[in-house]
């Protein structure tokens, strides 16, 4: 029995919730994996901060055009109907409420919906990119993450101890153990792995978990 989901499985689970006809921004790194698992038959248009709507998969090695990249500076291709635009228009799409979903990674998420995902504190070179903009404006802000840190500390917490990316911005968290919504400044469990009890889930969570009407089973295929 699975004890926790792999990153690919977390990405798969999040991808099942992408609405048809949605405009979506996937943060660089792990969130980019969500695109791979988009359910067939749903049309999703991907936005990238550096000025493309409707980009597609990576080109075959050797066929990259380095003027055609995503925000992670990876080579991409274009789907029919794609468009280019400058950075101010790109962030008008972000802050102006035109994106349906933004998917981001996290160091910590607080029960208030606060997100910390850009800085681990002093001692390194700070870099924020577009994260502080992306958390505002998208109709839904999803986080995909392991449920705990590599050291086993909770990532879902009462309040973030790391520098904030945004206040009250996260709407849903897909973790390696559960699917959790942020509702009225508390975590509400929607789904959890059948192999883990609610008490065990609570034990690895840094804030009180509330339960809605029902808790669904977090079912993900082997990937």
């Amino acid at each position, binding site marked *: 029995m699975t004890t926790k989901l792999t990153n690919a499985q977390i990405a798969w689970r999040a991808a099942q919730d992408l609405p048809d006809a949605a405009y979506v921004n996937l943060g660089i790194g792990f969130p980019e994996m969500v695109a791979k698992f988009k359910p067939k038959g749903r049309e999703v248009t991907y936005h*990238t*901060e*550096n*000025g*493309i709507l409707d980009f597609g998969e990576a080109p075959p090695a050797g066929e990259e*055009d*380095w*003027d*055609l*990249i995503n925000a992670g*500076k990876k080579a991409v291709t274009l789907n029919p109907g794609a468009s*280019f*635009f*400058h*950075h*101010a228009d*790109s*962030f008008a799409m*972000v*802050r102006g409420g035109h994106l349906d979903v933004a998917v981001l990674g996290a160091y910590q998420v607080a029960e208030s919906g*606060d997100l910390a995902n850009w*800085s681990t504190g002093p001692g390194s*070179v*700070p*870099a*924020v*990119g*577009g*994260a*502080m*903009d992306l958390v*505002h*404006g998208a109709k839904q802000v999803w986080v995909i993450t392991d449920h705990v840190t590599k050291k086993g500390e909770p990532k879902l917490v009462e309040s973030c101890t790391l*520098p*904030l*990316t*945004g*206040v009250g911005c996260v709407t849903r968290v897909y973790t390696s153990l559960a699917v959790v919504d942020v509702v009225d400044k508390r975590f509400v469990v929607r789904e959890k792995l059948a192999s883990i009890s609610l008490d065990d889930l609570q034990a690895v969570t840094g804030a009180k978990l509330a339960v809605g009407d029902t808790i669904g089973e977090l079912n993900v295929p082997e990937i």
Partner: protein
Amino acid sequence: MNKIYPTLENALDAVDDGMSVMIGGFGGAGAPIETIHALVERYKRTGSPGRLTVINNNAGNGAVGIAAMIYAGMVARMVCSFPRSSDPKAFTDKYLAGEIELELVPQGTLAERIRAGGAGIPAFYTPSSFGTQIAEGKPVAEFEGRPYVQERWLKADVALIKADLADRKGNLTYRKAARNFSPLMAMAAKTTIVQASRVVEPGGIDPEHVVTPGIFVDRIVEVANPQQEEALLREGAK
């Protein structure tokens, strides 16, 4: 009206010590490599222009482009959103040694500050960065029940831009996602210097396809078959 200059050297005589310099590009896409390198060569030869403030999304990669400026010692201050890259050593070493200053700006705020600078809007309110370190000390106001942070325009002495097509009147097109910050920077600088891959006669760009209208452009140099920063890095350029 003819904004065409014969060489980058000529066009770049507008750049002087202590100036603020906006440089187009996002990573390697849109980085005006030949223009930057001409400026680095001049600095190595004459010791000028130095003490520059460079405004770009990033802070250089490897040892070409903006990284070459940093290695040469021309840059006193970087204004950017993401000073990391596949090889950020040039910036990181100088930053951690306290030899280069950093103003970190969220990417959308950076874009809008530059747009505002070019559009004559001294300040605006954005939801981005509210409640974070970036907003410390900045005025906050509520609109329709939500808090917003005041940000100010960003202008520069010069902008260095890579375009695809240009005509002598300054109308520009860009190639694919190499557009990014360049149309905004072209508006926000006192002197906008463009390297264009091809210069065409006026009318050679369909008015429907002009991305940057010529009024925002001051100087153009044709640089055919320009280098691409990412391609250079992958070829192992030093």
